[in-house]
C-alpha cells in the first residue's frame, strides 16, 4: 500500500512550496523576473517553464552530488549546475520561440542568479535525497509560475486587451489601454496586490491555545 503523496518527504515539500511557503509572496524570492516578464502572458509562460525545469533539475543534481561537494565551494558548484541547465533552456528558447527569446532573453540568463534556485538548493537539496529534492524544486517552480501567470492575466488584458496574444471578446467595445499596466510601475503595483492577497490567505493561525483560553 503506497503512502499518500502528501505524506512523503518530497510530496510534503512540493505542496508547501506550491502555496503555504510560496517562493514569491511568502519567501520574497525571484522577484526580478516576476516583475519583468509579466506584461505578456506568453512570455510569462515560457519563463515559468524554464524556471521550473531549471529549479527542479538543479535541486536534483545538487542533491545527487551532495556527498561529493566540499562545504566551502558548494555555492560555486550550485551556481555552475544551475548555469548548465539555464544554458539548455536558453538554447531551446532561442531555437523554438525566437520572438519570445528576443524579449525575455536576458531574464532567462538571469535564472542562474534567481534566488529561488539557490534557496531551494541551500535549504533542501543539500540535506535530502534526489527524488524529494526534485519534487521540492518542482513545487517551488510551480508556485512561482502560479503567481506570475495570475499577474500576467491581469496586466496583459488591461494593457493590450489581449491574453496570450489573442484579442479578448468584444475588445473594441470596452478596451481602453491602461498603459501603466504594461510599464514598470504597473508590475510593482500588481505584485504588491497579489502578495497582499497571498499573505493574507496563507496567514498562519497563531500556534498554541486559541484566543480567550485560560492562561
Amino acid at each position, binding site marked *: 500500500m503506497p503512502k499518500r503523496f502528501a505524506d512523503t518527504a518530497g510530496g510534503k515539500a512540493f505542496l508547501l512550496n506550491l502555496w503555504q511557503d510560496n517562493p514569491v509572496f511568502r519567501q*520574497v524570492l525571484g522577484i*526580478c523576473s516576476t516583475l519583468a516578464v509579466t506584461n505578456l502572458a506568453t512570455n510569462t509562460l515560457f519563463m515559468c517553464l524554464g524556471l521550473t525545469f531549471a529549479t527542479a533539475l538543479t535541486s536534483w543534481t545538487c542533491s545527487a552530488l551532495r556527498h561529493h561537494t566540499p562545504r566551502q565551494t558548494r555555492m560555486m558548484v550550485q551556481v555552475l549546475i544551475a548555469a548548465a541547465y539555464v544554458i539548455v533552456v536558453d538554447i531551446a528558447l532561442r531555437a523554438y520561440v525566437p520572438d519570445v527569446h528576443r524579449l525575455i532573453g536576458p531574464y532567462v540568463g538571469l535564472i542562474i*542568479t534567481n534566488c529561488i534556485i539557490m534557496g531551494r538548493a541551500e535549504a533542501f537539496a543539500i540535506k535530502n535525497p534526489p527524488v524529494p529534492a526534485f519534487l521540492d524544486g518542482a513545487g517551488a517552480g510551480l508556485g512561482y509560475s502560479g503567481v506570475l501567470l495570475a499577474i500576467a492575466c491581469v496586466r496583459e488584458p488591461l494593457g493590450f486587451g489581449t491574453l496570450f496574444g489573442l484579442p479578448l471578446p468584444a475588445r473594441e467595445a470596452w478596451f481602453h489601454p491602461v498603459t501603466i499596466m504594461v510599464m*514598470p510601475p504597473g*508590475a*510593482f503595483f500588481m505584485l*504588491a496586490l497579489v502578495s497582499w492577497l497571498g499573505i493574507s490567505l496563507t496567514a498562519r493561525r497563531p500556534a498554541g491555545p486559541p484566543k480567550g483560553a485560560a492562561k
Partner: protein
Amino acid sequence: MTVPLAVTTPGAPGGLAAQLLIIFLAAALTDNILLTRFLGMCSFLAISRQMKTSLGLGVAVAFVTTVTAAINYLVHRYITAPLGVEFLDLIVFIVVIAAFVQILEMAVERFSPALYFALGIFLPLITVNCAILGVSLFMLNKQGYGLWQALVYGAGNGVGWLLAILLMAGIRQKLKEDKIPAGLRGAPITLIISGIIALGFIGFSGMVKF
C-alpha cells in the same frame, strides 16, 4: 519635436566625453536597472530597511558592477566571440563575477580592515545579485560599445542602483512609525512605494534619446 541631447551611436558629434556622459545618465536615470529592469530586487527588498546597510551594499554593488562590466566586455570581445562560443557567456560571466568578488574581498580584508567590517557580509552576497550579471548581459545587447562605453555603462547602472536603494531606505525609515495593514507590511508596501518611485523615474525618459 524634441531635440535629442546627443546620440549614443559611435561617430556621433559631441566627442567621446559627451557620449559617455549620456550613457551614464541614461543608465542611471532613464533606464534605471532597479526601477525599470527590476534587477537586484531581492536584496533591495531585504536590505533597504536601514540607511547604513543600504549605503554599504549600494556602494559595493556600484563598484563591482563597474569593474565586472568592463572585464566581461573584454572577455566577450576577445575570448568567447572570436571562438564562436557565445552561448558560454553566461557561465563565463558568472565565474568572472564570483572570482572578482572573491579577490576583492581578500584585497579589502588585507588593505582596509575597517572597510572590510563595514562591507563584510555584503560582498559575498553580491555574487548572486542579479543586477551585476544583468548589467553584463544587457551590455551585450548594446551595439557599438567600446571598453570605455562598457565601463561607463556599468558605472551608470551601479550608481542608479545605489540611488534607488538610498531613496527607498530613507522612505522606509519614516515608514516604521506608520500603521500599515498586516498583510501589506514588509515586501508589499515596499513594492507599492517602488512603483511610485518608478513613476517618478519615468518622468526622466525623453531626456536622453538612445
